[in-house]
């Protein structure tokens, strides 16, 4: 898996984040289910994704990988939330 240099934790909004990983189609589902800030997004689990209607394995993988990267950056204090 290649590493992208986009600075994954630097997203200012859920919309910006989902667009950046090309998963913008799920924005409405995220917002309607209360995941309307990057703060709440970092809490999302695979179960939550299924509930949001993210059923495709590839999309689940992409979103979970991205959340994982954001969490790591938060833990390392690289990005203030």
């Amino acid at each position, binding site marked *: *898996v*290649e590493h992208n240099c986009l600075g994954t934790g630097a997203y200012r909004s859920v919309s910006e984040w989902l667009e950046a990983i*090309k998963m913008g189609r799920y924005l409405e589902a995220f917002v309607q289910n209360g995941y309307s800030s990057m703060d709440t997004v970092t809490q999302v689990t695979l179960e939550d994704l299924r509930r949001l209607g993210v059923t*495709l*394995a*590839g*999309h689940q*993988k*992409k*979103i979970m990988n991205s959340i994982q990267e954001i969490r790591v950056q938060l833990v390392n204090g690289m990005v203030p939330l």
Partner: protein
Amino acid sequence: MCTNVVYEWLKALQLLQYAESFVDNGYDDLEVCKQIGEPDLDAIGVLIPQHRRKIHAAVRRLKEEEKQSDT
């Protein structure tokens, strides 16, 4: 854009035109490609029936290879 296993896999199937869309949709390793079904191909944008059949057959082969290496 670096090459990965999915790129090589699609190249062998002569379906390299879909490589970018596979990766963009999160199908970037063979483990996740094993889970490909109709809805996945819809999302990736593989619309030509012949190409869909080709990918389904290749996914079946991936799963069979997995079973064999398990034993």
